[in-house]
């Protein structure tokens, strides 16, 4: 697909996430300063930025794991800062989250890891349905044979795929990927990227992908945002940003 066509695909759609004037500091350390951004339906938005620039902090604010100092965050039309615990949990059921270090529960088997997000629906789930969902999620990432293994018995790439399966098991409307390919060899990284694209096609999700990986951004991004100097520094398609006249922007694409 041509870049500009990819960008146009997001025009005229409504935002699923909209962040306005977000500020976040830890003591003296200002991490985000007046940060604004929107993510649209069916869009793959890539967020790039140097290590320590606050990318993980940003998505943790969006999912309610951290509280911003000020600003508004709307997710699927709801202002998450005012949500009660119960409403927050309902909203989180619509969101998949792939943690930077996979965050698999290491005292549980792969099966138990995948069943964990289903606990929130335990009243509606019976044994067969749970089993089907777990198998479907595992088959999506091609690791059906690891069902009864412990995370420690899997390679880093396999762990990432299991974590992906766990994030997707409830077929969320929005997915956050925190550095999905970091620390993987180029071939495994490519596999993960293809998986992400598959998922997006299959379930029509909107995704926010944090990455340093320029190849990953090129393949997957409809749009890219650069988090730089604590704020949304530049925004555009891959071609626009990688050919930008601003040397600071260009530096990210070397």
């Amino acid at each position, binding site marked *: 697909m041509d870049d500009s066509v990819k960008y146009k695909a997001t025009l005229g759609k409504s935002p699923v996430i909209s962040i306005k004037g977000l500020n976040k500091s830890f003591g003296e350390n200002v991490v985000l300063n007046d940060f604004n951004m929107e993510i649209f339906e069916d869009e793959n938005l890539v967020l790039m930025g140097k290590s320590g620039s606050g990318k993980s902090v940003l998505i943790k604010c969006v999912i309610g*794991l951290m509280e911003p100092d000020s600003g508004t965050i709307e997710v699927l039309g709801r202002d998450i800062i005012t949500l009660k615990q119960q409403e927050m949990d309902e909203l*989180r*059921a619509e969101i998949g*989250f792939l943690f930077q270090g996979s*965050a698999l*529960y*290491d005292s549980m088997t792969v099966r138990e890891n995948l069943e*964990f997000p289903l*606990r*929130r629906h335990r009243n509606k789930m019976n044994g067969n349905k749970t089993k089907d969902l777990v198998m479907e999620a595992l088959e999506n990432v091609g690791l059906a044979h690891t069902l009864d293994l412990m995370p420690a018995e899997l390679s880093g790439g396999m762990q990432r795929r299991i974590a992906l399966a766990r994030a997707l098991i409830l077929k969320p409307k929005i997915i956050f990927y925190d550095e999905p390919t970091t620390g993987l060899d180029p071939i495994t990284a490519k596999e993960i990227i293809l998986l992400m694209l598959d998922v997006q096609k299959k379930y029509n999700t909107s995704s926010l992908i944090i990455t340093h990986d320029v190849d990953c951004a090129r393949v997957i991004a409809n749009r890219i945002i650069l988090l730089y100097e604590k704020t949304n520094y530049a925004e555009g398609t891959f071609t626009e940003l990688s050919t930008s006249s601003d040397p600071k922007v260009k530096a990210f694409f070397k």
Partner: protein
Amino acid sequence: MVGNFPIAANLISFFTEIGALSHFAGRFFKELFSRPFEFREFLRQCYQMGNKSLVLVGITGFILGLVFTLQSRPTLLEFGAVSWMPSMISISIVREIGPVIIALICAGRIGSSIGAELGSMKVTEQIDAMEVSGTNPFKFLVVTRILAATLMLPILILIGDLVAVIGSALVENVKGDVSFLLYFNQVFEALEYSDLLPATIKSFFFGFAIGLVGCFKGYNSSKGTAGVGKAANSAVVFTSLLLFVLDFIAVFVSDVIYG
């Protein structure tokens, strides 16, 4: 100012810690009584704690009874009071030494492993992942572990006491030619309600302290693998200190009650 007086600084950080710990305990009681209760995880924790500590508690108890009897035998012989051995052993072990020693052993075994486990879950974002999955990690991880430790400690202490008495009986059997049956009879005769009850109540508190501090340290551990080690280590140190304080309070209170 305070920096010039290390003792003052230490005291302040100690009391800050106590404050944070009380807050954590408050949260435990609040979440304990709200639904849902994670029963399966609670059972799993009970099983694991018992399983992990049973052999250790058994060995410690046995040696405790053995050594204690061997050491006090000559003195009692001197006064011609060896027949007091069963009552002395039962009272000193059941009332005091058994609970304290076994709680200390469990602080090392259970407290440190809770601290390390929760610490590493925190550092690797597993706790965040639970939160995002719609499971309250405090209920799932903390409430279950504190409850399991509170329940398991009295059981482990009871087992330890029993094995200690067996160890003691063995010495008396070999050295003093007292039959096991006779010895046990004498031990149980010597034991009174006022020995057992305070000791049992005390051991619930010991278990609670071990679970609480282990969870507190792990749940609030700082980033990085060093944070995990520190969580495990300081859980043991802090719990041990707390156990002695609790023991002092318990002895004081039961002294007031039973005179």
